[in-house]
């Protein structure tokens, strides 16, 4: 059954792409054909995902690909889980799409260039997750990268967008080749490319480490781990918002899926130092991601950097899992894996929600910078509430889903005490402390984001006159917000459904997180730690209702609305509010060396400085990785290219002498 559903899902997304071809002529085709087909494809994917997750793995062959290397499909529990993740966000984006792309319809943009790559992009992701041999995996992987490149380059008038698109494709290409080589190493020790044969190959430890390093490099680059992350905040904000939601929410998770499939499933053995490397990179990504996000004023760049942070957290959980598996504690290993997967699902939901809401804001206010927003909650009440739920979830606060997965990750770290290697017992708590710092900074980040954009007084005319987005857009956001709350309240139910995944990854033991029934989360044992989300929510509601009832019991007088306290010197203007840059100033001063900061303050007024007629503050915060990693490599390549181009000197006789000396050299060589 699963195969039919997944086949129908992939065909639907390809069909939506195909139909998109005609979209630039019949404009209505976009609203009534492309997006509905995409939504259906999302639904079919979710159904296929559930069937795969609950049923047993199915596999089949496809007539495509080389004769001796035809594409083969294998949908097991892990693939099913990621299919659900893809399906939910694709469905939400499909519902959101028509409303959002109304502005593109009458513009100069060609709609075909939007629809066709979207269809291919979704089909690419679906195929990657169900691929069962290296050849199909690579084709689907690069199809995903190429189609998303066309989407990033959709609004290619500005030079910055073009540059971002080029950078994105280049990094995707490098990552793709690294993954290809990792499969190459595995294939070298087995006699074929299909995953069964790759699993059967037993590699010497050195080659296993090389395969792991390549896979980690390739997938880490695509997921946006720190040293190789610079393309992500450039590329994601540039794409149309519903595509950024797909890219940030889902494509990064497909990279996580790839990493899990290669490292946990294909490479048989697991080594402790791999886990430590993944853990350290993950914590570095998490911390730097949130610190860089703190200094952004463009709303979508901020969300892109926060994706880096959450991916860092997911890789930390995977790092914990790898350390425990390598140290011989399979139960704790599965706990870490389940925590990572659950956080991946949660992140897909609330990051998708945040990007869709950001898209709605941008469509209404035509502003991308936080400094030009303000007071939007009154103008966009629905988007405001859903955005608030998104912010609460991503800031990992108790009743919401972010907290459930974060709590599981911290519990996995707390089990670190069981390891006998002393050094690990020190590293794990320190990384847990870094995780705590990241969580707290994330909370500050999203207070800043929500506070500056939705609360206070509107800072620009556009912010004042924003009006409600279309019903489709609101319902999509509402759906994702409801899911965030649902997964926050009933984590035990979700984790019980995910229970079958470890079994398919080389027979890891099933987690007993949900040992005590649907109400409780008990990672290691009932005594050591337990958390019951429903009861917590019940408690909160109870106390809230009690205090509300007590205070309002007696005479109920009307609340008066008066101007805010202005220290007595006249009406408050919007410019007196805290700006986003000001809000982040303390963190900028405390963690100063993290960024490349150049700040200029020009004071205009008389020289002695008694009377200043104006102050201009200019701040430019840029990423350090550009200066340390990307520019040097770029310069090195250009320098070697200039060196090599001297070879083409233009003189015939020099060319003749090249040929002459090559001949003499070779003759001398072989004699």
């Amino acid at each position, binding site marked *: 059954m699963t195969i039919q559903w997944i086949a129908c899902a992939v065909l639907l997304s390809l069909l939506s792409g195909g139909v998109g071809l005609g979209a630039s002529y019949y404009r209505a085709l976009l609203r009534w054909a492309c997006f509905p087909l995409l939504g259906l494809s999302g639904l079919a994917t979710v159904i296929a995902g559930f069937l795969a997750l609950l049923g047993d793995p199915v596999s089949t062959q496809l007539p495509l690909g080389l004769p001796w290397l035809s594409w083969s499909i294998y949908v097991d529990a892990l693939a099913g889980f990621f299919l659900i993740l893809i399906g939910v966000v694709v469905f939400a984006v499909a519902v959101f799409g028509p409303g959002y792309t109304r502005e593109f319809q009458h513009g100069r943009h060609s709609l075909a260039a939007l629809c066709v790559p979207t269809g291919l992009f979704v089909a690419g992701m679906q195929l990657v997750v169900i691929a069962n041999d290296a050849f199909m995996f*690579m084709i689907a992987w690069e199809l995903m990268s190429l189609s998303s490149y066309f989407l990033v380059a959709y609004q*290619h008038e500005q030079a910055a967008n073009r540059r971002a698109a080029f950078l994105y494709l280049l990094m995707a290409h490098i990552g793709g*080749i690294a993954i290809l080589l990792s499969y190459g190493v595995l294939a070298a020790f087995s006699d074929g490319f299909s995953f069964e044969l790759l699993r059967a190959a037993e590699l010497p430890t050195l080659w296993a480490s090389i395969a792991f390093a390549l896979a980690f490099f390739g997938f880490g680059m695509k997921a946006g781990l720190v040293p190789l992350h610079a393309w992500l905040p450039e590329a994601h904000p540039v794409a149309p918002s519903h595509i950024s939601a797909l890219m940030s929410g889902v494509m990064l998770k497909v990279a996580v899926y790839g990493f899990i499939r290669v490292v946990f499933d294909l490479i048989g053995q697991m080594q402790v130092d791999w886990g430590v490397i993944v853990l350290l990179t993950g914590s570095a990504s998490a911390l730097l991601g949130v610190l860089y996000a703190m200094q952004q004023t463009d709303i979508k760049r901020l969300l892109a950097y926060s994706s880096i942070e959450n991916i860092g957290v997911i890789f930390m959980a995977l790092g914990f899992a790898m350390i425990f598996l390598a140290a011989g504690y399979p139960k704790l290993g599965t706990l870490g894996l389940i925590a990572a997967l659950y956080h991946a699902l949660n992140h897909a939901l609330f990051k998708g929600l945040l990007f869709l809401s950001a898209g709605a804001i941008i469509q209404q206010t035509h502003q991308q910078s936080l400094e030009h927003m303000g007071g939007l909650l009154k103008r966009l009440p629905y988007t405001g509430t859903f955005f608030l739920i998104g912010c609460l979830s991503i800031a990992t606060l108790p009743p919401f889903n972010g907290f459930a997965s974060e709590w599981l990750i911290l519990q996995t770290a707390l089990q670190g005490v069981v390891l006998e290697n002393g050094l690990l017992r020190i590293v794990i708590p320190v990384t847990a402390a870094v995780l705590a710092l990241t969580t707290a900074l994330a909370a500050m980040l999203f207070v800043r984001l929500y506070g500056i954009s939705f609360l206070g007084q509107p800072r620009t005319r556009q912010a004042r006159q924003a009006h409600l987005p279309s019903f489709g857009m609101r319902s999509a956001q509402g759906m994702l917000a409801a899911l965030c709350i649902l997964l926050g309240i009933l984590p035990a139910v979700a984790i019980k459904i995910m229970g079958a995944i470890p079994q398919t990854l080389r027979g890891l033991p099933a987690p007993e997180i949900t040992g005590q029934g649907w109400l409780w989360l008990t990672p290691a044992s009932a005594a050591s730690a337990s958390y019951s989300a429903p009861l917590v929510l019940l408690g909160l509601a109870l106390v809230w209702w009690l205090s509300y009832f007590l205070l309002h019991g007696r005479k109920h007088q009307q609340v008066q609305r008066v101007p805010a306290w202005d220290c007595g010197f006249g009406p408050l203007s919007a410019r007196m509010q805290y700006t986003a840059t000001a809000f982040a100033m303390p963190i900028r001063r405390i963690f100063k060396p993290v960024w490349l900061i150049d700040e200029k303050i020009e004071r205009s007024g008389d020289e002695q400085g008694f009377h200043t007629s104006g102050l201009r503050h200019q701040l430019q915060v840029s990423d350090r990785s550009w200066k340390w990693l990307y520019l040097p490599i770029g310069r090195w390549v250009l320098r070697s*290219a200039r060196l090599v181009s001297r070879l*083409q000197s233009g003189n*015939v006789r020099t060319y003749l002498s090249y040929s002459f000396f*090559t001949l003499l050299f070779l003759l001398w060589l072989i004699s």
Partner: protein
Amino acid sequence: MTALYATMLIPLFTTLLLAAIPHCRAAGWINILATVATTVASVLLAIKVFHTGPLLSDGKFFYVDAFNVYLLVLTAFVATTTAIFSRPYMSYELRQGRVNNRRMRLYHAMYQGFVFTMLLALATNNLGILWVALEGATLATVLLVSLYRTPESVEAAWKYFILCGVGIAQALFGTVLLYFTAASVLSSADEGLLWTSLYVISNQLDPTVMSIAFVFIIVGYGTKIGLVPLHAWLPDAHSEGPTPMSAVLSGLLLNVALYAVVRTKMLVDGALQNASSTPQLAGYLMMAFGLLSFLVAGLFLHRQRDIKRLFSYSSIEHMGLMTFAFGLGGPLATFAALLHMTLHSLVKSAIFVTVGHASHIAGTQLIDKIRGLIRTQPGVGWGLLLGTAAIAGFPPFGLFVSEFLLLIATMQKMPWLTLALLSGLVIAFAGLFRTIHPMVYGSQPEGQLPVKANMLPVYLHLLLALWLGLAMPTVLAQWFDQATQLIAGQGVLG
């Protein structure tokens, strides 16, 4: 046999016909008809060879086996599509006044002459005739390079002629040495140059002389392939001649030269098998040349200011990759090389056609002045973008498959070489896309009008590449497999 003779004689006859009649308006159409007829004949020949196995003509003059028959069909097919493109292109050039009627007559005659020499080189069994045919191909194209009579094109033609002349001379010396060793082993001297007889007795040939002969041949024909450091003429010749000529040169002539080197390598491998100290000498030489060209050409891509020079360097890079693959030997690498050769011809000629149209739209070949193609003419813009993605080896297109197989084969045989391949691929990709990006995207510069463009060949080639990339038909796979068995000893499918 009739199909074989038909494939050979049609282009010869058309060359003479086009040369004889003074300029007539239908020259373009005759050109297309002739190439279509040749393609039909070559397809019939291919079907015949596919069913009955290798075909040796009476008198052992022609020899067609699985390896060269697919090249014959490929050459004829690409020549046809380029002819279809060249008719409107050259008539536009005629209207622009860059060529006069007399030169058009020369152009069409030499075009067919060039096709004839390539088909002859592919089909002949005699290595001497192979040399003569390649020399003929050089002569045919040298006049075309200087068709526009601009100082640059004259200079390019001169360099092309001198360098290829010297290269071909070295190849002749190699062939003479080959003949010398064969004559000392074979009974009757006149069979000394027939490839079939040489292949049979290849293990009795003297190893040292054969290795010297191979050095001369690889340096000689290597100049024709455009391997670094012998490549200097290629960018000039490809960028100064008319675009259809560059398309055909880039797509086909380089393949034929590589075909000649591989034929000789089969003999040298046979000779060196048991006798000499390094049996893999030929393979190592080709790998060294291939890798050097691949890396150096990749770096060159970053410095280009003329779009046709950019893609000629990309041709050098791909030829380097193919030479490396053939040098690596083994079934997987050879299959990858054959597939790469086909796909490179298809995609590279499609790109040159699009570049021709792009330069017409922008009125110049300078990269800095070509902007906003997608906005001006989506057909050309998207064609160029997809073509560049295909040539850079992105998956849905076939080139990814051959690079995939090659990387896996290198990983199995010589793992530490994959790093060089990886960096080469990435540097080349970066160079190519960095220059294409501003040209294709961006807003339409004022005064830039779409031009009447026949994009049929381009999308036909790209569709073929896509089809080969996604679902390789078993017939074609068996075809390549027979050729691989021939070259590398054992096939991939078996």
